[in-house]
């Protein structure tokens, strides 16, 4: 497996640290007046999502991690596992509820999402940036009120709750930004 020296550390690079796959977020070169240089490296542990800052001696290296992102279709949840499929070869993968985490709130069956594989096993799931979901529960809409502010909670088919404008009705499809968890617009259907 390839290894990377501190001067090759770039944001996005995936490496092994203390037995866990990590992604490099930032790499700062620091050097005192004379002598040994160091790299202060911010990394996200891809298993726990914890971000830490580690100091390396410049020139030290880390093994690369066998981690890559794969676009997959979400199939269904059997209670314990979420099931995904690679659209090209129909290969199926299962991920535990804890691996999927909050991403489950935005996963609609048949939708595409990004599954991060580590040594071939799902490590994390990222929904599309924008998803279109049905409102299954909200207070009745206020007809004609499209201008004034004000909002109300709405529960979506996947279980997420978002704040929507007062004019949105139960049964309508809305577009949401999964990164912020915010309502974007109504979808004409």
């Amino acid at each position, binding site marked *: 497996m390839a290894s990377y020296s501190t001067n090759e550390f*770039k944001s996005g690079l995936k490496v092994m640290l203390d037995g866990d796959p990590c992604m490099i977020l930032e*790499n700062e070169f*620091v050097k*005192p*007046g004379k002598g*040994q*240089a160091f790299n202060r490296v911010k990394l996200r542990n891809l298993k726990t999502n914890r971000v830490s800052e580690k100091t*390396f*001696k410049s020139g030290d290296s880390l093994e690369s991690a066998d981690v890559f992102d794969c676009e997959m279709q979400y199939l269904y949840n059997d209670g314990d596992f979420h099931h995904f499929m690679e659209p090209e070869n129909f290969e199926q993968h299962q991920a535990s509820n804890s691996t999927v985490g909050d991403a489950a709130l935005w996963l609609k069956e048949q939708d595409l999402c990004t599954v991060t594989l580590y040594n071939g096993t799902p490590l994390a799931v990222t929904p599309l940036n924008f998803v279109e979901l049905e409102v299954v529960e909200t207070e009745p809409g206020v007809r004609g009120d499209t201008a004034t502010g004000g909002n109300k909670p709405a529960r979506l088919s996947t279980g997420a709750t978002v704040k929507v404008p007062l004019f949105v009705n139960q049964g309508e499809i809305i577009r949401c930004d999964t990164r912020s968890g915010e309502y974007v617009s109504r979808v004409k259907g």
Partner: protein
Amino acid sequence: MSTEDWRPGAPLENLRRRAQILARIRAYFAAAQVLEVETPQLCPTTVTDPHLHSMQVPGHGYLQTSPEYAMKRLLAAGSGSIYQIARVFRADEMGRRHHPEFTMLEWYRVGFTLDQLIDDVAALACLALGETRCVRHRYRDLFRTRLGLDPLRCSIDELRAAARRYIDLAFDEADRDTWLELLMGQVIEPTLGIDTLSFVVDYPPSQAALARLHLDAEGQVVASRFELYHRGVELANGYHELLDADEQRARFAADLRERAARGLPAIAIDEPLLAALKSGLPDCSGVALGLDRLFMLAVGSDSLREVIAFSPPENR
């Protein structure tokens, strides 16, 4: 590459300020009768320091990491006090405060003690930064106050334990100087010179480089070297210059042994420098100051990119 990438990375206003400070520096040295000199950036050999990586130009030698050796040959030839505004080059150095190519102001004052040179550096820094109060710290006292240990006498295990207390480390093993440099650079340095020019003096003898040694007030051997910090940024490094050619040769040899141990390429010792020392370097003190960093602080920025017209691409 977008079509807008031809534009300078620094505001023109900062570049005008840079030119203005450069003019003041030249006027300062002219008034003090310090001669401006130029020495080659490309030389047949280069520094032996295992922590400095020179860029090699095949068939020609190395781009210099500092003009020090050539300037010392001028001093030995009787130039009197001299200064140089030099472009210098260091491979594998890239960061917010490090560029592989940068501008160094290096000067030597014949007959100056280290104390006199510190006053000189303070006066010059104030040309760029405005009047700023100066303070001095002994290296040893900084470690005692901030970390509760004597850097010259404590054990390596104590240094390691102190480093672990403050820093999340990705390594366990390091030599004494590496631990000291880590603690100095990451724990002490950021707190230095918040609103002052902070001069740190009396470095450990193992970090003397081209400085003489002397006994400190407690009878411990220390290096006649200082560093200047302002707002947590290391700005300058000065020495009461070593005059002894044999001692200098021994330090070069020690560097080369260290390079071999680290698997770094060997560097031919700069014989003309040693010959110049042998023929007699006048008693002098010298200092190298990172001009880009000085400009950066003068315009109130924390990135070199703000004061350099065209910076190298970021390694991100």
